[in-house]
């Protein structure tokens, strides 16, 4: 009986085609989303209990008007110079207590990086792209300073360390180690970026 030889062998040649079809399908449909951006914290609704008195010289005001022009510390400034100006302000160190600052110790500028505050105001008609560019430059000023300190203390960039610290795939022992380092740098240059409500004049 020929039947006893069993069922005829299945031709598996088309299996590869099917697999490729699937592969191509997923390649086409998968979109790698651009989920990266500037992280910011909004101020809470309730104002703080006690009024904090901040000296005018510790505030670095940045105003953006509706045409995208910048008014920094009451002077018109080009966007390209903003990062440098913000860095100069942050590490000015007028009270002399900041031993890692390389600023000019100008009496009319900020006392200390931990006291320095950047205040950002914008018009209701300011374009979003301009706003993002300004935000990017201000965050960049902080990052540049932090990277410098981090290079000096630990021999690697702060942004790099922070990214590894925030990455959930980093093993926990590495993360604990990084946590201290990240904290240490953040304490040296705390990010104090205040955003007032927008004006419409």
């Amino acid at each position, binding site marked *: 009986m020929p039947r006893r030889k069993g069922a005829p062998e299945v031709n598996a040649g088309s299996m590869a085609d099917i697999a490729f079809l699937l592969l191509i399908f997923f390649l086409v449909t998968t979109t790698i989303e651009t989920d990266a951006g500037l992280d910011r914290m*909004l101020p809470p609704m309730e104002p703080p209990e006690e009024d904090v008195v901040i000296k005018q010289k510790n505030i670095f005001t940045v105003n953006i008007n509706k045409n995208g022009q910048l008014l920094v510390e009451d002077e018109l400034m080009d966007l390209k110079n903003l990062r440098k100006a913000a860095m100069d302000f942050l590490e000015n160190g007028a009270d002399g207590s900041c031993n890692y600052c390389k600023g000019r110790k100008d009496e009319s500028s900020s006392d200390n990086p931990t006291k320095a505050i950047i205040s950002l105001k914008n018009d209701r*008609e300011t*374009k979003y792209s301009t706003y993002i560019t300004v935000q990017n430059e201000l965050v960049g000023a902080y990052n540049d300073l932090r990277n410098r300190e981090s290079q000096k203390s630990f021999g690697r960039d702060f942004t790099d360390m922070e990214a590894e610290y925030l990455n959930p795939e980093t093993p926990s022992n590495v993360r604990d180690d990084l946590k201290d380092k990240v904290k240490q740098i953040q304490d040296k240059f705390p990010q104090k970026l205040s955003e007032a409500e927008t004006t419409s004049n």
Partner: protein
Amino acid sequence: MAKFAKKKDGDLPAVSTASLPDIVFMLLFFFMTVTTMKDSSLLVENTLPNATEIKKLEKKDRVIYIYVGKPTQEYQKVFGTEPKIQLNDKFASVEEVGSYILAERAKKPQELQNVLTTALKVDRDANMGLIADIKQQLREVNALKVNYTTYEGNAFNNLQ
């Protein structure tokens, strides 16, 4: 030689297609489980600005998305060309942002409710007035962690 001759003139044995339904069902089940209806199609133009100092949004389940931009061509007749807010699959007004955030937050597991980030995907041509209103809404519902989603690139390209 009769044996060989028989093999030569005989056709290839027919492929058993018995397992084909299995494969098809496997695919079907796969797509049924993997497909999420959540992925909303964009109703607004959404060219994000560029930035360099960006951080990645690590976990997708901890993110609530808000889209802002001009309505796309097909909706411009109905909704005009002023930038609008898109929540999930439809246009929304500023006042609805707060309740949307609360609704989305309630959908998440308890342990994630305090670590949610709001990703603002805003078109580069939008005005800050609308963003300021959204931010005010977010503050009111205490959703303070925001991420201005951007592309990676030179930030000065935004100004052109």
